[in-house]
């Protein structure tokens, strides 16, 4: 990270009328960088963005933008004097302004002539595919159209840092990626950075240079997409960064990046790491779906199991398989090829040992990893 990051949060804390929404957040974002802010609902994503934008004042810590301190417990620079472009989770569109004037607004504030601002706004709207609503008021727009107006307004501000609060929640894949491309292009062209709040793991992993995991108002992990996916610091972190199963197994170190794993069917040696004990010891083992290999035909898969639930997801199918070590999620390309109750043997080629001190973390947000299975209705 360069000397003068675009954004630096130091020990940042925010409380709302007693409710502590954010505490002890240290975060740095470099130029050109896109950081995904990944966290469950109510974890403090919006609060963090609002604090950076200058909409809420921190109750503790400091916020630095491009080397200037813009907020601490005492003083706070108003939003208009921070070079940030903000997308609000609830759009916050002005009911009295038509779409065109809404998007032209930031440019007018930046001192551009009405006609110039409008021309630029039109162009921006077209890039987001909503040129046709330019003269409508928000009340006459669909949800996704409203959201896109919000995006356009944020991009219309010439900012060093873009704060995007679940900017694509109401957009389909096509528009989503169009917008993300727009943002990335903007960052590259102008050297701006972006903080992108979302709770869609796949989106965060694909889009971001680094992923900041936030939970219960604390920064849980801040690393590259592949790291947070493959080496989550806690079960909560694992839950946030994608599908997977947590099994209890006996584990021991077996050489560099090698684990000896016993799922109750004899030891397997696999890639992996984490909180690995020297001597065999029971541990909580994270298995990502892509680390598990089902063996449909033969029976040379070391671990036996029985399909408990099946979920068709288009490109692949989820199989929730009960086995001695617990329920494991297996994904396989194509439509369902096994039904509930069918036996299936499976193997693993990688695993990650989760730290012990984490059961608590799991307790307090209740988000266990083994997700409720939608297809069997006993839930």
């Amino acid at each position, binding site marked *: 990270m360069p000397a003068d990051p675009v954004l630096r949060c130091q020990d940042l804390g925010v409380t*709302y009328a007693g409710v502590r929404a954010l505490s002890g957040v240290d975060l740095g974002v470099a130029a050109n960088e896109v950081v995904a802010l990944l966290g469950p609902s109510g974890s403090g994503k919006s609060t963090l963005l609002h604090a950076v934008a200058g909409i809420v004042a921190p109750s503790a810590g400091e916020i630095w933008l491009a080397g200037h301190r813009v907020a601490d417990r005492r003083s706070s620079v108003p939003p208009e004097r921070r070079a940030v472009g903000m997308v609000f989770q609830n759009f*916050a569109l002005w009911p009295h302004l038509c779409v065109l004037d809404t998007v032209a607004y930031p440019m007018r504030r930046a001192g551009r002539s009405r006609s110039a601002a409008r021309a630029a706004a039109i162009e921006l709207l077209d890039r987001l595919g909503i040129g046709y609503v330019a003269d409508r*008021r928000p009340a006459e727009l669909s949800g996704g159209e409203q959201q896109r107006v919000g995006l356009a307004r944020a991009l219309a*501000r010439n900012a060093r840092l873009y704060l995007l609060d679940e900017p694509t929640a109401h957009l389909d894949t096509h528009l989503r990626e169009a917008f993300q491309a727009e943002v990335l292009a903007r960052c590259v062209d102008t050297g701006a950075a972006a903080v992108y709040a979302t709770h869609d793991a796949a989106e965060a992993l694909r889009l971001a240079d680094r992923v900041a995991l936030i939970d219960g108002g604390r920064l849980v992990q801040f690393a590259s997409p592949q790291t947070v996916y493959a080496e989550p610091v806690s079960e909560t972190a694992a839950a946030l960064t994608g599908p997977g199963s947590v099994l209890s197994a006996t584990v021991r170190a077996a050489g560099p990046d090698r684990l000896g794993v016993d799922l109750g069917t004899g030891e397997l040696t696999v890639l992996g790491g984490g909180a690995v004990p020297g001597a065999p010891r029971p541990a909580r083992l994270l298995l990502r779906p892509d680390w598990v290999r089902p063996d449909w035909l033969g029976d040379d898969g070391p671990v036996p199991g029985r399909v408990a639930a099946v979920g068709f997801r288009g490109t692949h199918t989820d199989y929730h398989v009960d086995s001695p070590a617990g329920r494991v999620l297996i994904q396989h390309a194509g439509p369902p090829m096994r039904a509930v109750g069918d036996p299936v043997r499976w193997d693993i080629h990688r695993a990650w040992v989760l730290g012990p001190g984490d059961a608590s973390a799991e307790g307090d947000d209740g988000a266990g990893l083994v997700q409720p299975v939608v297809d069997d209705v006993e839930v």
Partner: protein
Amino acid sequence: MAGSRDRLVVAAALLAVVALVGVPLYRLAQTASEGGTGSISRVLHAPGFAGAAWHSLMLALVVPVIAVPLGAATALLLRRPDVPARRLLQVLVLAPLVVPQFVLGYSWTQAYSQAGFTDQLLGVHWAGLTGPVGVVVVLVVDAAPLSYLLTTAGLATRAQPDLERAARASGADGWTTLRTVTLPLLRPVLAAATVLTFVATLETFAVPQVLGAPGGFSTLTTRIYADLSLASDPASFVDAVTLALGLVVVAAVILAPADLVLGPRLRTTRSAQAGGAVRASRRDRRTIGAAALLAGYLLLAVGVPTLALVLASITRAVGVPATPGNWTLDNFRTALDGPTVDSIGHSLQLAVAAACALTLLGAVLAALERRRAGRALGSLVILTFAIPGSTLAVGLLIAYGRWLSGGLFLILLAYLAKLWALAHRTVSGAVDRVPPAEAQAARCSGAGPAAVLRTVWLPALAPALVVAWLLTFVTALHEVTMSSLLYSTGNETLAVAVLNSQQLGEVGTTAALSVVLTLLLVVGALPAWVLLRLLSRRRVGAPRLIAARVAHAR
């Protein structure tokens, strides 16, 4: 069947409009036409008519232009939680409302004229007080609370701080945000305040009479009064009525187009996303400065005149120094003896009844207005607001005197006819701030129209409704001309006492009377005001069982 209930409401409202506005206006028109077209030309060519008409119009245009921004600015300032002495200021701002118009001019002369309060105290007096400038100033001071209340109610109806934050985050500073977001979203409210102030000024009598006359500044309303005092001659009476209808025409010509063309334009449909919570901002120098400015204004515009009034009420005689040696309670005794106490009772009853009925009528109209059926109603009911009380009273007497003459009910009708617009516009301004989706969500949750009204519209509009009640109550309580013309033995209203003391030329007594009245109002209005503050704060204690649960949650 919901549809039929609907139609019933519409029909009832239309009936009320016809009865309260249509019939009296029609009968007045008839009366005016007694003199044939002759009377019109006579009125138009009477010496001084042009001047008076010009004065009236000038007042009606100038006063709102100053008073509405003043009131709105006050409301926007006092909305900030970080204003020093906020509560106190919030009360004082309303003070002009409780000082009756019939002593307003007097209290100002007491305060600022030559040999007045400041003259005795500091040897400074304001020569311009009697004359156009004085009239404008006093009317502005008197009108400002109206737009303050309407704006406050509007802001309380749906504060949407996130819309302002979005502006800041788009690079707009505080002022620009105010200009481009806050005020535009207040347009319907401000429009309502402007219209009401415009008409009220057009129709005002007491202040121009006291402060205008010495400066030779006559208005249409003062001329109407003059014509009436000579109206034992039918011709002058017809002239008076014709003049009054002239005011109606002016109001109609200016307001109807504004309502029909501008009204819908100003409205906006809100989306239902939660507006974000209002948060305390750090107190800065500008806020303190503004608060100080406001305090100064209140001191000069409210404090001194009121003080002068109180002194006059406790001073033995006019012209003797208001030193404790000359203090006495005689004025209060005189004021309160005879029928006065009963009459205050009657006035209170009338005012309460009128305020309740008017709040309902106003709300109904605000709702109907948004239908094709009721579009023009809003512009209709304002017309009776534009007629001077004396004339409107005659209109109602002519219309219904045959059956209702000399009863309190006729006075009540007069109040309803006169003040409907006041209640209606107050509510109407706030309605636009409520997202329609809220009502839709209620219906999709199984709520019928009545339930929606009770559970969504009522809470949402509560601030506006309280304000409407407050305004109509105060105005009705202070009303003098109509009731003094329609009362009869056994149901005297306050007006009778007031006019009596005025007729006896006992300034002290009049002052005492209005002091009593003011106290009554303060006592009466305080609960309403507290209620309004609660509503505008919108923080209600959590149910017990929740409090318990929240403790162990998180």
